[in-house]
């Protein structure tokens, strides 16, 4: 049995609101998951259970959809998410050096969250701004024409 804490009541309330917004239509499952991902940070097992109940879709199926798409998290993330573009145009424009410098600077590996819960490091598919590669996103901010020495200043902007 799940113990309903204050936090979990919030999760359920949020899920209900979002599901209602999209009229619980099964073809809206991906927009629903995206919105919840944005509001909750990730899709917890609790959220998963509630989505399944409300939308009459088996939990296994909700999880299979959530885990399929890169932009939907099924694990908690840090306060800030770095998405580094690892595509070829960025790679040939000096991306490899920057990518290694990011990992060194934050002392985390791809798909990891730093111990203080501040950073999660991810790679992303092409962001389509290849004319200014190498490129990375920190939360919703895009940084282009990156060089390793710019990184400390960029990271210092985030608390």
């Amino acid at each position: 049995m799940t113990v309903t804490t204050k936090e979990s009541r919030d999760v359920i309330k949020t899920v209900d609101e979002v599901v209602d917004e999209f009229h619980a239509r099964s073809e809206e499952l991906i927009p629903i998951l995206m919105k919840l991902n944005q509001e909750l940070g990730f899709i917890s097992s609790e959220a998963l259970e509630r989505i399944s109940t409300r939308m009459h879709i088996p939990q296994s199926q909700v999880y299979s959809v959530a885990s399929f798409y890169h932009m939907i998290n099924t694990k908690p993330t840090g306060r800030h998410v770095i998405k580094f573009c690892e595509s070829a145009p960025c790679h040939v424009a000096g991306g490899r050096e920057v990518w290694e410098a990011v990992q060194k600077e934050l002392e985390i590996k791809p798909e990891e969250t730093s111990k203080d819960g501040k950073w999660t490091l991810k790679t992303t598919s092409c962001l389509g701004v290849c004319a200014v590669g190498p490129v990375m996103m920190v939360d919703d901010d895009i940084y282009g024409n990156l060089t390793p020495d710019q990184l400390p200043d960029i990271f210092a902007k985030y608390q």
Partner: protein
Amino acid sequence: MTALQAELAAKGLADEVKVLETPRIGDCEKGPEILVYPENYHYIGLSVKDIPFLVEEQFLKGRPVTNLLAPPKKEEAQELREPTAKEVRVVLRNCGKINPENIEDYIAEDGYSALAKVITSMDSDQVIDTVKNSGLRGRGGAGFLTALKWGFTRDAVGDIRYIVCNADEGDPGAFMNRAVLEGDPHSVIEGMIIAAYAIGAQQGYIYCRAEYPIAVRTLEIAIEQARDLGLLGEHIFGTDFSFDLEVRQGAGAFVCGEETALIASIEGRRGEPRPRPPFPAVKGLFGKPTNINNVETYANIPQIILNGAEWFASMGTEKSKGTKTFALAGDVKKTGLIEVPFGITLRDIIFDVGGGIKDDLQFKAVQTGGPMGGCLPAEYLDLPMDYEKLTQAGSIMGSGGMVVMDEGTCMVDIARFFLEFIQDESCGKCVPCRVGTRRMLEILTRICEGNGREGDIELLEELSVEIRQDSLCGLGQGAPNPVVSTLQHFRDEYEIHIRDKKCPAKVCRALISYEIDPENCVGCTLCARNCPVDAISGEAKKTHVIDLDLCIRCGICNQVCNYNAVNVTT
């Protein structure tokens, strides 16, 4: 301004120089400013006392006053430049010229007049015939004839039909569709409405990747504005034709650009492809006949209707008509978006439109067609670009990504890199793609790490054939392409990696080493201070030495050295 006019009149130049008032030229904080045409001199920080001298020098003697000129702007990487002589703008004609968030701007450029023409004076057959005669082929990559696809969807059995726009532009290095969606969204919407009219669809979806938030927002504004003017919705132009559009976002899965995976994703399922047939034209979205075209394909439609099929067919080659947008990236001077007629050579694209190779290094290869495309070496530079010619050369047209590589690129590393991408994006449904690409990646990785074995090349070739034949969708079938094309054109590089354990381009870390050139080293200690593993030793003002056992080949010493004293060898 008054002082300027007075001074011009005093010098008898009032009739020769016209003074125009203009809002904001550039940096307001450095005003007042003057722009002088046709020379395009930009003067800033002017005061009344500067005027007599300025008029005397500039207008009477024709010399610029250098101390008042604005500092030249640093040339930044621009996405869309002024077109060069070799370019023709059809799809990109409005990009950067109109306000994409204002439908009136689009209408002022003949927007929606193609739709009016279609609805008021053409029937379905006439629309499809016009598109057929234009020779338009799918711009998503495969190059299927658009009119044929429309005909199949129209003639398929079913009461409801859908129109889908594939805006899931996921190929690394490709951003042509994003530019159109963000710069001229109505051209895509108008193209879709015309397609809906020809096919008999009432509902359409634009599937746009979530990595393009601005494109999604621009599209939503555009759809809303079109709806307000009665261009979308019930009884368009007062006829019985009704059609509406919705934007659906992806969630970060490359494979959703494949049409059956895209359909699954719109339906709210995992974006996994399914075998075809049945093709979406027969059984697509929600099981109904569905026409799926790419952004650029739809954006061409209004122009074809307005200017006629003959106009469109007059551009391009025998089998590839019209223009194609490309995103130029990599080691080329002018990166960014271009639109050129089919039939142009790669040389013209790279060296004329693209301005040549960065730092004037040697051209090595160009990669076309995205991750499932191929790399073409210098001997293909004079190849006229069209769907068939590229396929014959071992690459593909794809959606229009074009990555230029200079002599410092290792082709084995590039092949490994693309395979890594494909392996990451494989949806995992079918074995040849899921397991096969993993095996290929393992082999490529060991070659790059200096552990390549005799027989590896043959094994890669064998895997390529199997994966190409047996994969379910285009992603798997195209997955071996980067390896096949680099093996075809750069086989010797693979052999040198495997047999000599050397990387000719000096890229693969395990196969290179760094050494300090005693001739150039002045003993500044900069490299030693920056080495992350303390592998460099030496006293100040004396030649330094790298301990190769400790060195991790990170290359920092090479980057920081101001005396060009760190050499890379293989």
